[in-house]
């Protein structure tokens, strides 16, 4: 069972690698943030799988922290986008 779960963790990480192409290619900011979001979820899944496989309860705490805070970075993106738009609307970009 341990081997299977570890292999599963590896497989999830592999899909995440594929998703990282979107971070590199874009084209929009939204695409990049989505890829980062996928990375977060994939990371959570990989942590759960390898944590259970090796019997490390600490990795569940780690996964939960990741789940709580991965969303957080994405909110930063949204907030940042809103602030960026406010700024260009105010037209104070040029000194």
């Amino acid at each position: 069972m341990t081997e299977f779960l570890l292999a599963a963790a590896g497989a999830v990480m592999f899909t995440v690698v594929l998703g990282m192409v979107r971070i590199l290619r874009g084209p929009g900011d939204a695409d990049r943030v989505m890829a980062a979001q996928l990375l977060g979820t994939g990371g959570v899944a990989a942590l759960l799988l390898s944590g259970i496989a090796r019997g490390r309860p600490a990795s569940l705490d780690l996964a939960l922290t990741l789940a709580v805070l991965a969303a957080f970075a994405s909110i930063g993106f949204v907030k940042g986008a809103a602030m960026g738009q406010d700024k260009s609307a105010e037209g104070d970009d040029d000194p």
Partner: protein
Amino acid sequence: MSFELSYELLVGLLVLTAAAWSVAARDTYSATVGFVSYGLLIAIMWMQLQAFDVALAEVAIGSGLTGLLLLSAAARLRAAEARVTSRPPVMLRIVAALACTAVSVSIAATVLRLPESAPSLAGAAVGALPATGLGNPVNGVLMAFRAFDTLLEKVVLVLSLVGVWSLAPEPGWSGRPRLLHPFADDGVLRFLARTLPPIGLLFGAHLMWNGADEPGGAFQGATVLAAMWLLVLMAGLGEAPRIRERWLRVAVVAGPMTFITVGLAGIGVAGAFLAYPEPHAKSLILFVELPMMLTIALVLALLVAGPPEPTAGP
């Protein structure tokens, strides 16, 4: 074992790709997203190194709070950054690349040639741990053996917060940070800000409490709390504090002050500054960690929020 290694190889490659991307990407915003992913991946690496306390800190700080900080900065600087088109001459870049490669190679060579029988303080730490009453040796180092570093690092946090505050433009001093200015049509965010914080609060407290014996601790717990507080403020559910408010300032220094008070009491009771009398060591440490968690959470959140600014925009 070889399977394990290939998993680690994959993680290592991903980490390096994300790092290279966050340096090489033309657009700063995409570089920042790359850096946030890097923070997630490096945490997985820490887990592979069996350093769960560090992994928790890295996830919370590296991907969460730093991500928010950098992403919102990148958004605000977008126009100015885009105007920067000049790049250093090719020759200079080649020289820099060669020099950096040389540094990397020599560090790698040094690390690889370290003695096979690695010197370690693990034995000493485990041997001294019973005197602290804690079960988590990392926390023992942080709160007892090297408590002095931990105390001073909290002072670093307070100093940098005052440094950030002192950057406020004169009319905005004692106003609210821009990140926390209320932001229009936020029904969805409000929903999240109502549902997630109870989970986060519970979990943050769990991390701190658990940290005495298992991976975790005041710092990791505080980061989760800081994130929850920021979420509530960003969604406009709570009033962002003005920095002239007395309760805020008192809370900012409460942690280090308690730490110092307990430390000074240690001179009389246990014979040295920051020494704990043995039977009460664990309860004293938890007593110090509680206000420290409050202070850390506040300071981290306020550092992310940035200097207060006069209200503008929607």
